[in-house]
């Protein structure tokens, strides 16, 4: 299995998970009605 393929797929998933948590923080004070 080419190393780059694994790196791209797994790496992008980790980046997405981290960004999801950052987004959750980002919207902390924005979600009030």
């Amino acid at each position, binding site marked *: 299995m*080419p190393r*780059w393929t694994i790196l791209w797929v797994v790496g992008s*998933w980790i980046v997405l*998970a981290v960004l*999801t948590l950052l987004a959750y923080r980002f919207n902390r004070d924005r*979600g009030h*009605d």
Partner: protein
Amino acid sequence: MNPLWIGLFLYLGVMLSVGIAASRYMRSLDDFVLGGRRLGPWVAAISERASGESSWFLLGLPGAAYGLGFTEYWSVIGIGFGILVSWTFIAIPLRRESARLGALTLPDYFELRFNDRTRLLRLVSMVVILVFYTFYVAAQLHGAGKILKGTFGFEHTTGILIGAAVVVLYTLLGGFLAVAWTDLIQGLMMTAVAVVLPIVGIAYIGGFDVFVERLSAQGPGYLEMSGGKVGAAVMFGVAVGGLSWGFGYLGQPHLLTRYMAIRKTSELRQGGLIAMGWTLLSYWGAPLIGLVGLALLGPDLADPEQVMPLVATTLLPGWLAGMMIAGATAAMMSTADSQLIVATSTLVEDIYVRLFRPKTTPSRLVMLSRLATIAVAAVALTLALTAGEDQSGGLIYKTVAYAWSGLGASFGPALLLGLWWRRTTFQGALAGMVCGMAATIVWKNSAALSAVLDMKAAAFLISLSAVIAVSLVTRPSDDPAGTGV
């Protein structure tokens, strides 16, 4: 009785029961179109995901991965980012602004946000929605045709007719609430398929190493993110073509209505987390289903988009395969029903109520909505039936790409900038919509332009440039609506 039927029948029965249950809660147009803005975060988030992922997710995408290999993961990565950006930067301001302005639909929002007295934004939005959703729903009906043909050997047209009948029936009965609740069940089934099928498949083949060996034997390109293509420019094209699926998320009315329908704005923050959890859990598996199919069944399938039902029936006992195939049916239905609701709301709320301002009763509007749903479904059905059987083996993938690009490019830039950039003007938004729609249609019909830059990326960037450029040279309106920032 064929055990495959048991799983499928069980599923269809549950969907119709939900439709009947939800019909008891429906008394007004607001209920039919937005479920009275009373969805909780779990229903809103999973429903958004299930509607966002159509036949494309369990038939089109595995079919493309079957043909191209790991390079299809570019699409998956782009999609992950698209979903994240949409939940982070659009969901909350759109929910807040639409409630404040009293907007039930996306065309409502555009008209009120830009204080558009000419009605042009509403009219252009309506054209975009009706044109592209007809194709989109037709692609879902093709999905039903393919599933039922691949599994039970039905004629393609019979499969399309059965799929259309069930979706229309429960949409008619329960409106938005039925659609959102069935989406929840369907979203969870889709995850089960995307997670279980690749794991069982790789174990059946003999483990990950054997799986990789078999793919490698089909050709080295299957394991490469470049798809075996050489040259920086070509690789750039492959990556952009995949990643640009993400742009589409910013302008899909059937997903944006999920944000508008949530009970409280604050719950969207939690909803975003749930939606991303679903994405990270489900999306890695969908292309792997196609790759497992390639390793298991060889490269000679007549229609690659039937790879998922074929893998399920090869690997699993009949009743379980039936449940998995019901999952693919779920993917198709959860999208088609939501799109029918949006197209219906466009006809009834955007055209009839807002333009003609009739003196009428809520129950009469619900009845009109049901008639409009039937009308839109009939047009999509005609389109699906006249297209005939899939000759190229990529019909769902390509048709969805077209509709996805058209909606994303027409609405995405105008919406995002309208929410976040106070300087966005009515003329800018209008230019963005028209350019996004026109660019998609031009690119779709020009192989030369598509060779230079992928349709989805090109149309979005042209629309984005148009909104910015025209906004800068025109004067903002008195802006009573303000922005969501």
